[in-house]
């Protein structure tokens, strides 16, 4: 079976007045057909930059300096803007974090989705309207609400509309970037449920970006953990939770409170994430790591397969 998405040695950086920041540094992974992959990490670790690189929606001061993004057999990095316009929505689409900003406030929500469909498919307006109606039902919105403006929707409804819009042109790959972060726990739960069901039903591949490892645990088959621009661990969800290999993944897990099981003492990770203008030479987690050795200071650990389909980037085999 061929991977639908394969990222090879992707490196991208931002040019800032203070210097160059490599937000994504030599990251590689694959997503197989039907799979949902979760990308977890703290703010500034490069997870959104990675998502934006795949969509090629980067700001002007950002550049993909190295690597390939192979989607459906073709390298996205080499595509021109005109070609990208076809790939976005039809091939890859994205559910954005800020639902308020992703919708145009002066156009009816239904019309915005119709417009998106008609821009990509050569169909009549009535047909497109039918399609939006079906999409509304799929994401749990009453089709009668198509005639309302975004401000007449609640936060959860807006997020549902954004999901409907992302699905409008039958994409093969959906990137969900913190789709529930601004929402309340009950609404978050409903949206997550909806996303997972739709992803399975339509047999899409998905990349779910979140800072919340518990949300990822419930939505994804595979998990990639990012730290300061590096992908430091990548494995099947069960394997990762059963046996996290990288010290950062372990630290992340033990700093999360849960409502399940006995109350456990949280162990904070000492220090702060590094400044990417001047990152540590070797392992980027080295200054905060409790297992640090001399080699970690000056040599970057490669992402290697420690167990079957379980990759970790750490010099120490633990």
């Amino acid at each position, binding site marked *: 079976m061929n991977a639908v998405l394969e990222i090879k040695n992707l490196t991208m950086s931002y040019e800032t007045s203070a210097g160059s920041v490599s937000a994504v540094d030599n990251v590689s992974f694959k997503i197989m057909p039907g799979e949902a992959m979760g990308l977890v990490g*703290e*703010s500034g670790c490069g997870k959104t930059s990675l998502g934006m690189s795949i969509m090629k929606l980067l700001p002007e001061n950002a550049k993909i300096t190295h690597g390939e993004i192979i989607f459906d057999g073709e390298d996205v990095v080499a595509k021109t803007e005109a070609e990208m316009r076809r790939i976005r929505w039809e091939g890859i689409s994205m559910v954005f974090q800020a639902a308020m900003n992703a919708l145009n406030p002066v156009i009816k929500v239904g019309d915005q989705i119709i417009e998106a469909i008609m821009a990509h498919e050569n169909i009549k307006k009535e047909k497109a309207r039918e399609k939006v109606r079906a999409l509304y039902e799929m994401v*749990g*919105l*009453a089709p*009668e*609400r198509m005639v309302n403006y975004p401000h007449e929707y*609640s936060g*959860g*409804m807006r997020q*549902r509309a954004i999901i409907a819009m992302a699905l409008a042109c039958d994409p093969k790959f959906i990137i969900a970037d913190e789709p529930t972060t601004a929402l*309340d*726990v*009950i609404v*978050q*739960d*409903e949206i*997550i*449920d*909806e996303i997972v069901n739709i992803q399975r039903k339509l047999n899409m591949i998905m990349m779910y970006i979140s*800072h*919340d*490892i*518990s*949300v990822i*645990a*419930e939505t994804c088959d595979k998990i990639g953990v990012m730290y300061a621009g590096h992908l430091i661990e990548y494995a099947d*969800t*069960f394997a990762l*939770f059963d046996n996290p290999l990288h010290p950062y993944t372990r*630290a*992340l*897990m033990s*700093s*999360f*409170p*849960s*409502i*399940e099981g006995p*109350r456990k003492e*949280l*162990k*904070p*990770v*000492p220090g*702060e*994430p590094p400044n990417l203008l001047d990152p540590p030479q070797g392992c980027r987690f080295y200054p905060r790591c409790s297992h640090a050795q001399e080699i970690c200071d000056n040599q970057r650990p490669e992402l290697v397969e420690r167990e079957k389909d379980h990759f970790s980037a750490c010099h120490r085999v633990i």
Partner: protein
Amino acid sequence: MEIVNVEHLTKVFPLKKRLFSKEQPYVRAVDEISFTIEKGKILGLVGESGCGKTTIAKLLVRLLHPTGGKISIRGKDIADLRGEKLKKFRKNIQMIFQDPYESLNPRLTIHSTIAEPLIAQGLYSPEKIHEALEVVGLKPPEGFFYRYPHELSGGQRQRVAIARALVIEPIFVVADEPTSMLDVSIRAGVLNLMLALKKRFELTVLFVTHDLAVARYMCDDIAVMHRGKIVEIGNAEDVIQNPKHSYTKALLSAVPIPNPKAKRKRIRAREKVICI
């Protein structure tokens, strides 16, 4: 000993009148709420956004004036305090805000930030500032004196906010989502710091959060709010392990669990969700 005693606390906000309508519509943000907090205990106030939890926080520090009810802090009713008397009483209650990027004055050094409440209350001494920074783990304190908030990370800023709240030795502290803006690996450190300070100084705290897992970790008791009312209140472990009210059950069943093997049973108010 009871430090905080709230009885039938109510706050209504007027809504915009409709054109040609004579009636003034209101929203009851906090509706007849009662609870107590014992000395050295943390009460967690949980609920979804818009349930009134931040309104309660603001009422307790008297940033808002209650419409009705009683708030007594160590026996003194502060619900109707005004002017000079209110200002005097303020040193007894302090608040820690959600966003450490907004709650610190960007033009004040850390030293001035912490000195401000002391000067306002006429209690200033340099040793107090030194000690306050040490207590919240910003060491060495001298290294932070002349820095500005923008030079600090989110976690360090929130530590400064905690130091500022505690430096005048309040009777009671209100913390409104103090860690929701912080990253996971930093958050645990701030939570543990607050627990350590609570133990060391026998702090009495109202801890407002939307995160049930954090509430469980931090609090002795938990009160669950829904639409301006407390629907359930009790020992934290009891509320989490054995919720009585259907809303608490629904809320708990919606919390994602960081363990892929744990299959949650979702309790839903609606079978198939259709938003009308």
